[in-house]
């Protein structure tokens, strides 16, 4: 039966071959799988091949089939339909198959499938558990299994910027960088800081889709959180001495990546100032929330080193707030800024830059002139 289906599919043209393939995969997973205890190696190989040939269109046999844009849309439609029509109980299994599919699509740089997956992530909400699951799978495939820089992964933004964008959003929610247990893997941080540094538009990709897909999240708040909390968390880890789960070298590398990432974020903001983007890359509320989380992370009575780290954190927060507030993609909220001011005054160490920036936010006219001349 397995051989038959492949032979039959090869005789069909697009979109019939894909439709048939998806139907087969759905029914195979919904009905046959539970009855057969474990897929044999042969069967698994066949499933991969069907995915590759008729869903990803990266043929192992003949010449590459190139889909037109209309055909890509058709493909997307079929995949979505496949998901929606699949029986409830097998959705997860199909979904699981899709995880593998996305990982595979990434490895063969299959733009249409990555785009489909990106839209799916966006529709699904980048912070949802399903999407987190996918993210985790990808991180383990590309960042943990192969700690060496993967050329496939480093070129992800150029293959599918939207996918990269949503992937980063999801990654920041999975690895919140709020303590030792939520540190992002170094290679992930390296990739992400590199992506944003090299491509100042990447963080805006999901925002660009906002007019088509009402639901979106951006990687910006999450990445800002990394840059702000990172120095404090790293400092606390260092202070644990022998208890620290990672080496000092590793910590230094993380901090260096954060330096780069922080500049990349500012540059991305400067970039958005010159293009016409709808608001929503980051909001005052996001920043106020980051301030809160920083307060949570910080020790009640920080020592000298942590105090310095905390100052770096606050300065970064201030810098992002300042530069973001001059762009049209920032969502202001005077109440939230007030909240931040109170937090800064009462709960956090003094930071001249943050004071300067908050002051300017709250008194836009008065703040500048006096200081320039002083």
């Amino acid at each position, binding site marked *: 039966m397995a051989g038959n289906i492949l032979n039959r599919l090869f005789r069909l043209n697009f979109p019939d071959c894909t439709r048939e393939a998806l139907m087969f995969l759905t029914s195979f997973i919904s009905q046959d799988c539970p009855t057969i205890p474990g897929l044999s190696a042969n069967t698994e190989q066949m499933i991969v091949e069907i995915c590759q040939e008729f869903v990803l269109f990266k043929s192992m046999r003949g010449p590459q089939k190139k889909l037109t844009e209309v055909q890509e849309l058709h493909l997307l439609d079929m995949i979505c339909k496949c998901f929606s029509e699949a029986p409830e109980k097998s959705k997860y299994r199909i979904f699981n198959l899709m995880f593998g599919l996305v990982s595979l699509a990434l490895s063969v740089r299959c733009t249409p499938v990555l785009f489909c997956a990106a839209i799916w992530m966006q529709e699904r909400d980048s912070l949802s558990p399903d999407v987190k699951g996918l993210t985790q799978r990808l991180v383990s495939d590309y960042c943990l299994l192969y700690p060496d820089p993967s050329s496939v992964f480093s070129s992800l933004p150029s293959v599918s910027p939207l996918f990269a964008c949503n992937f980063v959003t999801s990654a920041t929610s999975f690895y919140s960088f709020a303590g030792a247990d939520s540190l992002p893997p170094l290679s992930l941080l390296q990739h992400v800081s590199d992506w944003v540094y090299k491509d100042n538009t990447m963080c805006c990709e999901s925002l660009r889709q906002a007019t088509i897909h009402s639901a979106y999240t951006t990687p910006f708040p999450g990445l800002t959180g990394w840059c702000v909390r990172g120095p404090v968390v790293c400092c606390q880890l260092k202070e644990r001495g022998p208890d620290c789960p990672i080496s000092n070298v590793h910590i230094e590398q993380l901090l260096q990546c954060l330096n780069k990432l*922080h*500049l990349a974020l500012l540059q991305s903001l400067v970039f958005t100032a010159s293009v016409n983007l709808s608001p929503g890359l980051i909001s005052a509320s996001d920043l106020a929330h980051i301030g809160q989380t920083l307060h949570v992370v910080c020790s009640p009575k920080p020592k000298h080193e942590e105090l310095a780290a905390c100052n770096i954190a606050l300065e970064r927060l201030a810098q992002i707030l*300042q530069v973001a507030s001059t762009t049209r993609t920032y969502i202001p909220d005077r109440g939230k800024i007030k909240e931040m001011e109170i937090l800064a005054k009462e709960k956090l160490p003094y930071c001249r830059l943050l004071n300067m920036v908050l002051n300017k936010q709250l008194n836009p006219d008065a703040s500048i002139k006096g200081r320039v001349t002083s």
Partner: protein
Amino acid sequence: MELSDVDWLVMRARSFPKNDPYSAKAWLITAKSLYPQSFVIQFESYLVEKTAKNVDEAARNLQDMLQNFPHEPVLWSEVHSILESLQKEPQDQKVSFLTDLFAAIPTSTQCLMVLHVSESIPDVLDRCQLLLLAMKKFPNLVQEHGLKLVEMLLKEETKSGIVNNPVNCYRKLLVCDVMPMVLHKGGHLEFNMFHLLQKAIEFHLSYVSQPNTHDHTTDTESTKLSLKIGRVGGGFPEMDLQVADPWGNLFRLLILIGQRLNWDMERDLVMKNKEYQIQALQHQLMRAKVTGAEINNKQILHTAMVLFVYSMVNYVSFIGTDSSSTGKSIDLTTNHPVPSVPVVLLEVFNCSRAGASVPSRSKKQKLDVSAPTIHCSSGIASPTAMLQAFELAVKCFEILNSTEEMKFEFYHLCQNWRKETQSMLSYFQTDMCIYQGNYQDAVMHLQSLTVPSNSKMKVRNSLQMASCYFGLKQFAKACEQVLDLVDTIPSSGPMSSTLSADDSTEEKGETKSGRRLLMLQCLDGEVLPFCLHFLIAGLKEKLASPQRTDSTLAHLIILLQHDWPKHESTFSEVISIIQMHGSFTYNTFFSYVHQVDILEEFAFLDTPEGGKVNLDIMPISTKALAQQRTVTRGVNKGVKEDFRATLEKQVSSAAEPADVLIRRFLKEEREEILKNFV
């Protein structure tokens, strides 16, 4: 004291270690966002990018600052240093970064930079050099600023008052650097291109004809000069006024102008080598002349003008005048060796037909139909090139004088020439007149030349003068010139006897019609035979005339000893005249006649077979002897025996060389010889 916010931000940005290139930038982005009107912050971020060698970022920063802070002196001094780096050697890393930086800035801003900085430079020359430099690096600037530069230079040249000396720094910059660039790259040109071409001709002509007075080049001083060079007033560093290939440059300008005016010429002529260009221009000139359309007039005029000055100067440098390249062994403008002695163009007069060959001025044009042939002495270095230059110059000169309009333009071109160029033109015109058989004008041009008495040109001029007077049948003047000349030429070695052209006049002259001209080197070996040729020819003229005396015949005989037996036929002629006359008196005969053949002939004349001519050629006159002694037969017989004895003695005695003898004769008997022509 607490720092102001701005200063504090800059201080913080500077506080990060070198291994953290990101944080400083992050701070500066924030600072810029906080204080967008602060120049200090913007300049700091420019410096950060510059230090990090980020060309694009630094360029963007610079451009932003030029837009937003156009009045900051610090910014302009930075711009100035960038522009200065453009003219340095690119080996230096810092310099090459600045050059890249400038290149990364949009053209409009580049222009702004250059213009602003150049306006701030008070010296026009410095300003022009800066603009020029920028245009060289970025040809897209030419379109906008080329014309301005041309106008600026023209204006400044006039203003500075050195316009009378075309070889000045403004003109050089204009014709050697600006014009080629503007003509090549510039857009629509509104100015009069012919006016500019005239300026270019003036410059190049003056440049190649200027006396080379300073050979001690001070390289060390002049190589350092950059923006601060070339003050007005003659004190230019020499290096600065050197032109590598002046003629090549002039041809290039002509071709570029021609292309702009859609003259019919090869598309890529400007890329070809100079020799090819000259050929092409020459053909094109002849073609344009043949079609004769009104529209071609400008093309004919200017092509002829350029080709004329080129070939004229080239020819004059071949003849090796004082004014062309004094003291140099190689002519720097034409790259051919400068002759150590001048080369002179002379007409060879065919003795028996001398009268017929002198055309009257009215008949000149007709006679010129068959152009005379020019023979070159074998000692001349590159005769073909020299003759080509001469013929081209003559052709162009004729074209330039063919219509009133061209005459006017040509006159206009010539009137501002410097003295050296004027005398070059006189030399050429002299030769051209001789070539055309127009001796009257040739004499006029020769007289206009003021030549120092010790000059090597003195000989040349006297020779030509003699040639012209001969042509005008003013033998006395011609002879006087020749005799003066012989007096001044030092004797060194034997005269040349292998003078091909001189031979040819004797051998082939009769058979071939048309005038013959000769190019000689002003060496005594070549000049003396020619002088003798003049004298012999002049005396032969007198053979048939009633003023002829025995002295005339004697003088001729003495001269005929030169290169004996070349003139044997003339000698026979003289002998038959003596025989016809029956007597011959010349008492200094034995002082100057040593040639055995001639002496034998005289011995023969004395015999009955020889006609028993009554010869009175003994140092003491036969008549006087006769008066002394009693006139008897016996005494007379004694005289006869004396004559024989003297003849025999003369034959056996060791003779001085013929040329020494003849020189002595010319010197001692100068007055007697001149009497022949009175």
